[in-house]
């Protein structure tokens, strides 16, 4: 079963590829669940970028409610932990 709908969150993307508004949103339990969905989404986007040999961590996801109020901004850099040599 799908989980009980609690609230609709809109996860808008803003990165090197431009701005993409989330047209339909997702029913999620709370803002924590929306943040988790944003993190998962960013990891999915970045994995595709990595496969093409580039990684742009300068983007962010805006989490908005149905009225368009921005509740939280999740920078792409929060989705991955980077370890570099040296």
């Amino acid at each position, binding site marked *: 079963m799908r989980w009980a709908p609690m609230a609709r969150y809109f996860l808008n993307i803003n990165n090197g*590829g431009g701005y993409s508004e989330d047209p339909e949103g997702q029913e999620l339990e709370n803002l924590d669940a929306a943040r988790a969905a944003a993190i998962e*989404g960013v990891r*999915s*986007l970045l994995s*595709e970028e990595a496969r093409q040999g580039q990684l742009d961590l300068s983007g962010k996801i805006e989490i908005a409610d149905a009225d368009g109020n921005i509740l939280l901004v999740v920078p792409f850099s929060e989705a991955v932990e980077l370890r570099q040599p040296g």
Partner: protein
Amino acid sequence: MIERHLLKLRARDTVSPEEEQAIRDSIAEVRTFGADEILIHAGRVLSFSILLLEGILCRYKDLSDGQRQITELHVPGDFADLHSFTLKRLDHNIMTITPCRVAIVPHEKLEQITERLPHLTRLYWFTTNMDAAIHREWEVSLGRRSAVSRIAALFCEMKLRLEVVGLTDGLSYDFDITQTDLAECVGLTPIHVNRTLKDLRERGLVQFKSGRVTIHDWKGLVEVGEFDPAYLYLEKWHL
């Protein structure tokens, strides 16, 4: 009631009046369901198969972490689980994506068809083989294709499958699934799907908006999706 089913079958083979009547007679009842309703749970012993008359259905499996993988979409005219006739239980669930109208076909009736009508039996065998071909194509997409290619391939597939049953309007068609459903078809997240749709739109290939797909450049979309319709076995149909 079975017109779309007949269109699907006749795009690949002949169906005699006797066979057509046998299909009509095999339907025990018609039921309607809302969106997101689970019609068949994996593991349950089944005594009937489901023929989709209207709407979109899917086969899917749930993962333990709450993720879902849709393994095939069904359009009107498809049996969603003709394979349950021989398997008796399914190893996957069947759920409605949009509101659906389905015909219930008891296995007993299918058994009578196999005993009485060998050509129709082979034709039904063919359709389950074609489902397997669709699964293979999705396997290739999920395993190897880029995000943009996966979605392009799916839009191409749905365009042809819906066109066969008379549900396209030139290069556009109703496809009332959410970006979350789409993500579950192509093994991506809704955010990744959103970004990929923007990419396809900006390249002038296809637009997916408010439950409708509008293809602007069929050749370009076919190229990006590496779409080869051979797996849909439409050689006899006017492509």
